[in-house]
């Protein structure tokens, strides 16, 4: 059996092109992004003392009923500082509740941060030991979860939230969720 010239030269070329395409696609990916297994599942339940009022317990139950954001933050986290003005803007301009999960932070540090930079959160839960963070699969602060009205996790963003992420990822999701609720009504 003799391979024809097209096959003989074409095949290696094809294999090369395929491999190059595969590797090129791999280059464009961010290896730091770990897909969350929580998306599509009910938000992990927690009940923690509120940052501002330790006697008050806040948790997953309080976030139900409306589409909401849960933002994981800490005063020691530099990227959170970068993200903070955008959260302040969201809180001012958008009609969506933002809840905070203050992760492995000292209460006084966290409160100083909120008092100095502004507080975009409805409340912040104080996760001093990071146990709730583990339940939510937190591995790099800041992280932001989008929860629907039924308390299902719809999206997770790792890293600072900004205009681009909001426009390209979260806004389309929010309008999908809103139209879904309209339909269900």
């Amino acid at each position, binding site marked *: 059996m003799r391979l024809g010239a097209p096959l003989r030269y074409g095949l290696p070329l094809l294999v090369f092109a395929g491999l190059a395409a595969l590797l090129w696609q791999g280059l464009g990916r961010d290896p730091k992004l*770990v897909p969350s297994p929580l998306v599509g599942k009910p938000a992990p339940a927690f009940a923690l003392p509120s940052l501002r009022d330790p006697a008050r317990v806040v948790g997953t139950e309080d976030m139900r009923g409306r589409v909401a954001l849960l933002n994981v933050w800490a005063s020691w986290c530099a990227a959170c500082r970068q993200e903070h003005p955008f959260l302040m803007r969201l809180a001012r301009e958008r009609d969506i509740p933002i809840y905070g999960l203050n992760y492995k932070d000292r209460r006084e540090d966290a409160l100083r941060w909120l008092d100095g930079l502004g507080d975009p959160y409805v409340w912040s839960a104080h996760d001093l030991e990071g146990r709730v963070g*583990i339940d939510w699969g937190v591995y*790099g602060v800041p992280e932001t979860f989008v929860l629907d009205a039924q308390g299902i996790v719809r999206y997770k963003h790792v890293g600072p939230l900004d205009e681009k992420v909001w426009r390209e990822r979260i806004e389309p999701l929010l309008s999908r969720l809103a139209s879904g609720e309209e339909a269900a009504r």
Partner: protein
Amino acid sequence: MSAPFMALLLVLALGGGMPALAAIEPREFPTPEQDALYHELIDELRCLVCQNQNLAESNAPLAKDLRDEIAEMVRAGKGREEVIGFLVARYGDFVLYRPPLRRDTWLLWAGPFLLVGAGLVALAMVLRRRQAAPPAAAAPDPEALARARTLLGGDRAGGGGDRAP
């Protein structure tokens, strides 16, 4: 270089690649089985923060928290599958250095064998073709041979190479 010195170098070179077990905090377990399970798990599970280290090697705070969590589960008598299930439910398959065999991962597992298989098939084809082909350089055409001789000046016996005139 002397043989003992070479041996020493070899030991150092190999030892350098071992996980630095001394880096993690000591823990005590009620039974040696639990101790073994704990170490097996932290060796096998991947750190989320420094992605090319396992939980045993990593100094990241999250890795320590996860070691605490795993140690607590092991002490509570949880088995291997339960601990792994706990972490996969939170962080996904990413924490596993040994991914499970599933519909979306079979290519990962079978890929290398498929490639070796394809290589063997190609090799067999080439070998068979080579065997089937007529022996190369059969008796040359006598006419062409004669012509070649004349062109090379074959009448001169044992030509001594080129020489400038």
